[in-house]
């Protein structure tokens, strides 16, 4: 803490170990009493060099690293990465694999939004919400565990499809969750949506205009809360999203409250998509028939010489995509998650650039918080829904 001579201004550090900065984010606050004059975010505490690391790994090996970006929505990261690689390879994916992907990614969106809801409300003093949201998230993580064996770092998607077919009893589990959650989400809304304390703390706080939001590169619920209806699932449908019937959220004021409404709306829509994906799940193969790229089944590896050789080659060398560059982005729970991959024709990417939505969204913090109180800053950070894993990479 430092007092600037001759003025009433003070410089205070918030973080990097502060519960309401949601990770190792350090904010250098310039305050006058309780009022914020300026906010300078300092990031990089979690930088692990994932982009550099990817240049030394084969395309298949890169999937594991993407789990560690936005660790609350690992399926989305997997999906964005493998879809970029598939675009590079010009690979067609079987319908069943696409539906499995959509189902899991949407469940993951609900799980990610539940963590946001839990911590956001907790930051503003509503402790009970934290327990409720984490209780339901636990069920989703259990579903992930039955599918991939891992709760947070699934690495379940593969270039060409998914690593294994859905396990027995999966449909039942998801159905049970949908039934349960339909009433639970109403309970959440009963608790918060019209709660006068909540409204006082969030309405008109952290406002950003449409124009500023676009020029600052905001995406996801943050952008939609300002009234711009842009959702990549609708504007550039990938993974068969055109088959599903859902609506995209839209606010009007661009404040913390509208962001809350936008995400709650999205949770309900995701639930609809999960239901449709489960009911309409096509039969067929869960991985593409592309022997150059896709690992052969265990059965083939053990019984045929071609399978064994293929397996050995893909594991030890990987595959060689054509020379070129692609950018592919998906609608992750946080916004536009993009992967820009440059291939020089070798078995490892020449460069992988990740476009993490949280990194871009965090830039808007200073503009939203200036002139407001420190207590409002806590509300604003919560509403940005950042994950430092993907900001720092």
């Amino acid at each position, binding site marked *: 803490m430092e007092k600037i001579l001759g003025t009433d201004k003070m410089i205070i550090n918030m973080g990097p170990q502060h519960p309401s900065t949601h990770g190792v984010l350090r904010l250098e606050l310039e305050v006058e009493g309780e009022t914020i004059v300026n906010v300078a975010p300092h*990031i990089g505490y979690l930088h692990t060099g994932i*982009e*550099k690391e990817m240049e030394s790994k084969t395309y298949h090996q890169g999937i594991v690293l993407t789990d560690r970006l936005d660790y609350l929505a690992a399926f989305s990261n997997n999906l964005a990465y493998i879809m970029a690689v598939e675009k590079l390879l010009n690979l067609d994916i079987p319908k069943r694999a696409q539906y499995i992907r959509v189902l899991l990614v949407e469940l993951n969106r609900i799980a990610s939004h539940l963590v946001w809801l839990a911590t956001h409300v907790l930051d503003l003093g509503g402790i009970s919400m934290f327990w409720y949201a984490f209780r339901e998230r636990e069920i989703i993580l259990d579903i992930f565990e039955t599918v991939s064996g891992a709760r947070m770092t699934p690495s379940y998607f593969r270039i060409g499809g998914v690593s294994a077919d859905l396990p027995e009893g999966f449909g039942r589990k998801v159905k049970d969750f949908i039934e349960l959650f339909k009433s639970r989400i109403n309970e959440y809304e009963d608790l918060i949506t019209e709660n006068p304390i909540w409204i006082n703390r969030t309405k008109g706080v952290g406002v950003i205009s449409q124009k500023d939001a676009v*020029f600052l*590169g905001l995406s996801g619920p943050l952008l939609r809360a300002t009234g711009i209806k842009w959702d990549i699932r609708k504007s550039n449908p990938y993974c068969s999203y055109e088959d599903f019937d859902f609506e995209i959220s839209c606010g009007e004021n661009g404040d913390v409250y509208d962001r809350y409404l936008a995400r709650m709306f999205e949770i309900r829509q995701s639930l609809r998509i999960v239901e449709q994906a489960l009911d309409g799940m096509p039969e067929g193969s869960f991985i593409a028939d592309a022997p150059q790229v896709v690992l052969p089944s265990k059965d083939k590896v053990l019984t045929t010489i071609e399978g064994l050789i293929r397996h050995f080659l893909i594991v030890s060398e990987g595959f060689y995509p054509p020379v070129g*560059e692609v950018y592919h982005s998906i609608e992750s729970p946080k916004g536009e998650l993009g992967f820009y991959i440059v291939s020089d024709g070798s078995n490892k990417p*020449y*460069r992988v650039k990740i476009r993490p939505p949280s990194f*871009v969204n965090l830039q808007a913090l200073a503009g939203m918080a200036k002139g407001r109180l420190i207590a409002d800053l806590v509300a604003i950070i919560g509403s940005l829904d950042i994950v430092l894993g993907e900001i720092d*990479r």
Partner: protein
Amino acid sequence: MEDINAENLITVIKLRHELPDSIREVNIFRNELTMTVDKKDIKRICTFLRDDDELKYDFLSDLCGLDFPGRHERFCVVYNLYSIMLNHRVRLKVFLKEEESIQSIVSVYPTANWHEREVFDMFGIRFDEHPDLRKILMPEDWEGYPLRKDYPLRGEDGENSRH
């Protein structure tokens, strides 16, 4: 070239009309349009692409650096632009020599601020007129530019470095 579609063509034709000499190369791969343009015009090009009524590239999705050691023009800065209103994309690439700097586009797209800081941090490419060109991910006293190809994966200390 493959899959030439109308939207891609309009962007190229309009830009060629506005700034005839600045496009060096046009490439379409997997239906993604990439234009290599001259370094000196980058800010004008971005402003034009953003403000033109038929193009409206109002959203800078991403900005990043590339390193090609051994080439005459070693570095490349890549701009991935998108139009929310018209739903189309374009990628701009600018090549520059090792000692050269490039114009910042923060005044055109404020979101470029942190992206350019990251490119500066990771590659050592300098952006002229950037309001606040500091390191962003690496510690302030860090030496070297990690994403350059000649920077070792485990850092300059090699195996001994266990940060």
